[in-house]
């Protein structure tokens, strides 16, 4: 499932964009250093293939539903993790622009959820550890299915966490998690079957294609520790820097915690963790948020909204509707004028 702008707070969206941007830069540098410009058209055309193939469904017997490929894992098998990540990022960019799948700020989240997990987690650690050069087609199938399931579980966990930290929905963390993970278990299984089917078809008809991809070592020159370190730094930097712009009710997390407070075991550690995080953000942020908000956004905090509801909010509603009607009139007028020219 795609994350959407409407459910995101600027802080969460910014952090995820930063993480995605770092991965894009790292992958681009890696692919460029391989000095193999054959990959450029290959990546582009395979991206177009994934885009088209995602719309071709197969029937899952006995259920009435259908499955299709996600693409990340298939691309990783054919191109290696870095090339696959760049390609997946482009597929998602096209989807975000042309089909409004999620929106532009959520694109950072979506590339991370659907690109990073299959390419840099599921492929090297699951698929590669099951499938090797001498493996049978059964191992191939098991490897793809398992890798697809794990990638999708992580991806949907990503959506849940991003939604939760944004605090726009009222869904409690655990209910949302319980809702999302099982659905994605089924989706992951279907995607795994689809990927396994295509890969074993290629393996049977033109095995040399998979052999050449097999030679690539995912993390040959850069140790995984460095990558993790870079990510950690990026997260901390982005968190500290962007937090001051995050929604005035810091990420709605406090509020969300209040909502989940029926689940007691969650409450205290989460809150403590959050307080620590908040302290840290306050210390590291360049512009502390108090003056900025109190002066420029009066009457904006939820608590203030609660206090002076009656007067301001009714006039706000009347005014808002009026402004909206004016906008519609302006739009229609402009359109008419354009058409008459």
């Amino acid at each position: 499932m795609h994350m959407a702008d409407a459910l995101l707070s600027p802080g969460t969206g910014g952090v995820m964009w930063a993480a995605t941007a770092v991965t894009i830069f790292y992958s681009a540098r890696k692919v460029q250093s391989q000095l193999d410009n054959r990959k450029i058209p290959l990546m582009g055309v395979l991206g177009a293939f994934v885009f088209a193939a995602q719309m071709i469904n197969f029937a899952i017997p006995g259920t009435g539903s259908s499955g299709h490929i996600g693409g990340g894992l298939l691309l990783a098998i054919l191109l290696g993790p870095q090339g696959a990540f760049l390609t997946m990022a482009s597929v998602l960019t096209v989807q975000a622009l042309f089909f409004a799948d999620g929106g532009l700020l959520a694109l950072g989240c979506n590339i991370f959820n659907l690109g990073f997990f299959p390419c840099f987690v599921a492929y090297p650690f699951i698929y590669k550890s099951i499938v090797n050069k001498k493996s049978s087609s059964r191992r191939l199938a098991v490897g793809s299915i398992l890798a697809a399931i794990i990638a999708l579980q992580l991806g949907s966990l990503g959506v849940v966490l991003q939604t939760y930290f944004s605090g726009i929905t009222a869904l409690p963390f655990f209910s949302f998690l319980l809702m999302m993970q099982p659905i994605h278990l089924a989706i992951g299984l279907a995607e795994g079957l689809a990927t396994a089917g295509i890969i074993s078809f290629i393996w049977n008809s033109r095995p040399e294609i998979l052999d050449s991809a097999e030679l690539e070592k995912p993390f040959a020159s850069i140790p995984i520790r460095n990558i993790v370190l870079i990510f950690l730094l990026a997260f901390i930097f982005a968190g500290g820097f962007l937090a001051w712009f995050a929604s005035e009710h810091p990420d709605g997390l406090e509020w969300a915690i209040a909502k989940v407070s029926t689940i007691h075991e969650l409450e205290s550690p989460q809150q403590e963790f959050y307080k620590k995080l908040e302290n840290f953000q306050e210390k590291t942020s360049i512009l502390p948020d108090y003056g900025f908000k109190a002066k420029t956004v009066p009457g904006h905090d939820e608590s203030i909204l609660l206090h002076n509801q009656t007067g301001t909010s009714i006039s706000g509603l009347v005014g808002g509707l009026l402004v909206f009607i004016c906008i519609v009139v302006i739009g229609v007028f402009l359109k008419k004028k354009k058409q008459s020219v």
Partner: protein
Amino acid sequence: MSRIETVYYDLGRLDLLADKNTFIHRLDPRVKVVTTFLFIIYVISFSKYEITRLLPFFFFPALLIGLADLPFGFLLRKIALVSPFVLFIGIFNPLLDKEIIFHFGSLQVSGGWLSFISILLRFTLTLGAALILIATTGFPAICMALEKMGTPKIFTVQLLMLYRYLFVLIEESIRTIRAYTLRSFSRKKLRYEIFKQLLGNLLLRTLDRAQRIHMAMLSRAFTGEIKVARNFSFGTSELFYLAGGTVLLTAVRFIDISAIVGKLILEAG
């Protein structure tokens, strides 16, 4: 029309829209990308219960749709098509958050409904912004803008490649599916066995195509970069658009226009 055919149609239509020649279309794509992001960030930076202050933001898409002569119904339909996920997640707000925080005469509105409406408004505004950006700029120009703003070259080059071959591969998929449908008594979905072979073959043909394309590119002196003939410059109209857009957006973000207008009306009445 099946989903893949709809997608093909929409891609083509948005691509054609980007070919129009209006003031908005002629602007440097970088300016449009930057203002679109500013718009999205401002829209989602409001608190979760905000409704009235989001309404003035509709001014910007309305202005752009008007100035760039875009088909309003088409854009709206596209936004409505992708709404199920947000609706599905958002509808839990009214069910879970029942605290009454707004009285309108005898009508009591709970926080959940307010935040649900807020989600729908955010959704329409942000997705509208993305669609308007592509419909006024076109994909190749956006790629160039991204590259000029520091995105790695290899990423933008293969974004361009992807876009160029998207049409080819979707057409090929449509033909393949059509051939299957004609021979299978219009069975709606593929059987797994057929699916494997069909997509496997499509993939093999794609790989061969990539190889042919690469050779064709090499024979035309490809060195790893794609040159685009269209040139953009940052002139007075760009400066005007960027400055005007930023000032207006910031004003709408930080001044409660709805409240001011509402107060004026209520006091006058």
